[in-house]
């Protein structure tokens, strides 16, 4: 054995200089925080631009500039105060934030699990809808004893989502069809399927002409907590996060999913079936999104309507991106965006700021989080991360 030779130098690709002594997660947290601050600034600009007071005072800006400034500051202040109050200003607010977070966490898990396997799951919306459809049907058409009815309905939801996700995985495995396109198309198919089902007699509530289903049985509803909108689905979401953590980090299946996500070629060479990994990932991801669907229809909405998915489908993507593909990160991100949604509702009520502002805030936060270099160039004191970050999704050749 050659013990005298010293370690030959590592290959030429430039290595990131070792950053500060902070662990990676702390650095990422700081970057996320900075991103949120920047996003709030962008939001502030939009609020100012849209505010009536500001528009009025701008007309005579030259004469009394301070008027405009104070109008701007008060507009932003009011709006963000409403946001904060709506998010955590009272127990009701907090419960609303958690309620909003519930489907976001599950949806986020659905997207990030697929991420780790190298798949971009934009179909959370469709998978959620399918889950909601099956769960709602079991909820209002079957009549079972308490607890059992809820469980069966939840399982139905999981199955619905799993099927819708599984199709994508199967197509990708067998035909190489890129999941970005298939999932987006399936979203639309699911939307129209839902719309049509709500016109059929099976699904339409008797006596109504608008697309709405019968209310689900009391036995099939998620029990609520303390008289608020918060229901035990929230704890199910946390449980789901633990399950995903265990799956990814402590199970053989998870090892395979992560390996395929990091390097499908090496995985194939090591005897793993890449196609099987894709299918498993999408089935589980679909089930998670289906779970989110049950939380909507059995927890908050109660009857099935064509707005059941709301914006959860795309919010789930931003949650997963902010959570950087880890279950813990996804939970935290889900809580943050849930709070944002809850606050946004309050903000719309109090200052008439459109709810779409929260969508913009979410997108901007994620944009900045995805480009830490940009955040660092704005806030120069932020340290660098150690080592290179994992590249998540791949392109068409992947």
């Amino acid at each position, binding site marked *: 054995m050659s013990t005298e030779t010293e370690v030959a130098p590592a290959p030429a690709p*430039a290595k990131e200089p070792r950053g500060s002594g902070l662990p990676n997660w702390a650095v990422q947290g700081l970057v996320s925080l900075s991103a949120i601050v920047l996003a709030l600034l962008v939001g502030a600009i*939009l609020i100012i631009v*849209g505010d009536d007071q500001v528009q009025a005072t701008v007309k005579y800006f030259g004469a009394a500039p301070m008027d405009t400034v104070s109008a701007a500051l008060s507009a932003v202040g009011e709006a963000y105060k409403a946001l904060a109050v709506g998010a955590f200003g009272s127990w009701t607010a907090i419960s609303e934030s958690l309620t909003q977070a519930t489907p976001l966490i599950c949806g986020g898990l659905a997207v990030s699990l697929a991420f780790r396997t190298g798949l*971009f799951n*934009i179909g959370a919306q469709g998978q959620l809808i399918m889950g909601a459809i099956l769960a709602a049907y079991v909820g209002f058409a079957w009549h079972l004893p308490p607890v059992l009815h809820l469980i069966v309905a939840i399982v139905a939801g999981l199955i619905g989502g799993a099927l819708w996700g599984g199709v994508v995985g199967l*197509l990708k495995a*067998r*035909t*190489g*069809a*890129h999941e*970005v*396109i*298939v999932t*987006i*198309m*399936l*979203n*639309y*198919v699911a939307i*129209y*399927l839902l*719309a*049509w089902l709500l*016109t059929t007699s099976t699904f339409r509530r008797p006596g109504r002409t608008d697309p709405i289903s019968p209310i689900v049985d009391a036995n099939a509803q998620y029990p609520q907590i303390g008289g608020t909108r918060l229901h035990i689905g929230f704890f199910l979401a946390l449980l789901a996060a633990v399950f995903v953590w265990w799956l990814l980090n402590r199970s053989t299946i998870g090892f395979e999913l992560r390996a395929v996500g990091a390097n499908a070629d090496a995985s194939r060479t090591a005897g793993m079936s890449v196609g099987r990994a894709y299918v498993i990932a999408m089935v589980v991801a679909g089930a998670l999104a289906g779970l989110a669907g049950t939380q909507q229809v059995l927890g908050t909405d109660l009857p099935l309507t064509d707005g059941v998915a709301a914006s959860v489908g*795309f919010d789930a*993507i*931003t949650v997963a*991106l902010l959570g950087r593909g880890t279950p813990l990160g996804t939970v935290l991100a889900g809580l943050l965006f849930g709070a944002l949604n809850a606050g946004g509702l309050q903000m719309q009520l109090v200052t008439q700021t*459109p709810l*779409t*502002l929260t*969508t*913009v805030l*979410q*997108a*901007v936060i*994620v*944009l900045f989080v*995805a*480009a830490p*270099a*940009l955040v660092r160039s704005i806030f120069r004191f932020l340290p660098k991360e150690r080592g290179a970050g994992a*590249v*998540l*999704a*791949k*392109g*068409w*050749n*992947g």
Partner: protein
Amino acid sequence: MSETTPDAVPAAAPKPQAIEAPADRTRRLRVGGVMLVFALIGLGLAVFTKGGKATFQLVSGDLQNNLLGIPAQFTALVLGILGVIAAGAYLLRRVPQSYSGYLAALLGICFIGAFLCWAAAGKTFPLANQFQGTLNFATPLILGALAGVMCERAGVINIAIEGQFLVGAFTAALVSSTTNSSAAALIAAAASGVVMAWLLAVFSIKYLVNQVVLGVVLVVFATGITGFLFDQFMQPQAEKLNTPEVLSAVKIPGLADIPFIGPILFNQTILVYLTYIAVAVVTFVLFQTRWGLRIRAVGEHPKAADTVGIKVKRIRYSAVLAAGVLAGLGGAFFTVGYAGSFSKEMTAGNGFIALAALIMGRWHPIGAMVAALFFGFATQLQSQLQIIQTPIPGELLLMAPYLATIIAVAGLVGRVRAPKADGEPYVTE
């Protein structure tokens, strides 16, 4: 040099295939399978076609003359059987490889023909409308796909076409309402597409953000911001800000008089004419100019381009920004070219269908155009069928273009060869 050294010959010579490569075989079976399914559906529809005549309107608006009446069931059956033969021939490899494309086209025609006979049995189907509408709906798809071709040939994945459509539609509506000038509206729409393109370029080329992620986030951002501005400004002042002038059709004298195809191709809005020009220009630029060569080099092997002195990042910026013009114009179609006023999320996933057309067209402008026409056809067909009241419910018909996309991407295309460096940010020192 040794005189007996063998001449330079290829390391592995292509052989006429007595043995079929396994990859070819799986593809033949898969595509053939899909074709057979369609052929059988076509035949099935033919069997259930009602008696009577299917009348096809050959000139739009003309309900008296220029009508083509054919016996519905008979024609449908003939087409159905022909389709099955074509699919079978492909599946069983009865025809040399180079003609298999024609078989697929033949099947396509048979299926659509049989379907139309079934749907239009006993009714009048506006055929000319169908083709005119195909071109109309395909316009944003072609423009979006062309934008995608430019970006991706340079190595930048552009999932944000949907977002560019939205801002283009919004801007066109806004500018047209306030200035009453269609030209200004189109220019503004193009400019807004460039702004979104700039975001895509900066974040992906400079900040090395993963391009697929970036594209989706930009779509969410565009949806959010157009939604916000709509809620905050447009909706409350709809008469002032959201009443754009829809472009009217402009007849090209001479060309528009060619029977049947004349009115379809040459009696369209200026946006459609711009699209024709765009296809020709993009094809020429990509394959016959220096800029195009550099774009393609940068998308296939950026390191090679760098080593001969080409500025990779600059070329990528230029391609993405230029593509932004096309995408913005594509967005303008939805308001100024078709529907009029803007409404939230009105582009309904067309940006992603354009992406699918790009892939189906193998990243070639002409291929993308053909694929876009295919999707436009499906969209128009679905809307026509709603009008003539076919037995299929409207909501299910609305699924047609999306299902068509899935089938196309999964069944007909399979594994494709994108530009080699597509999606990989170019990292220098």
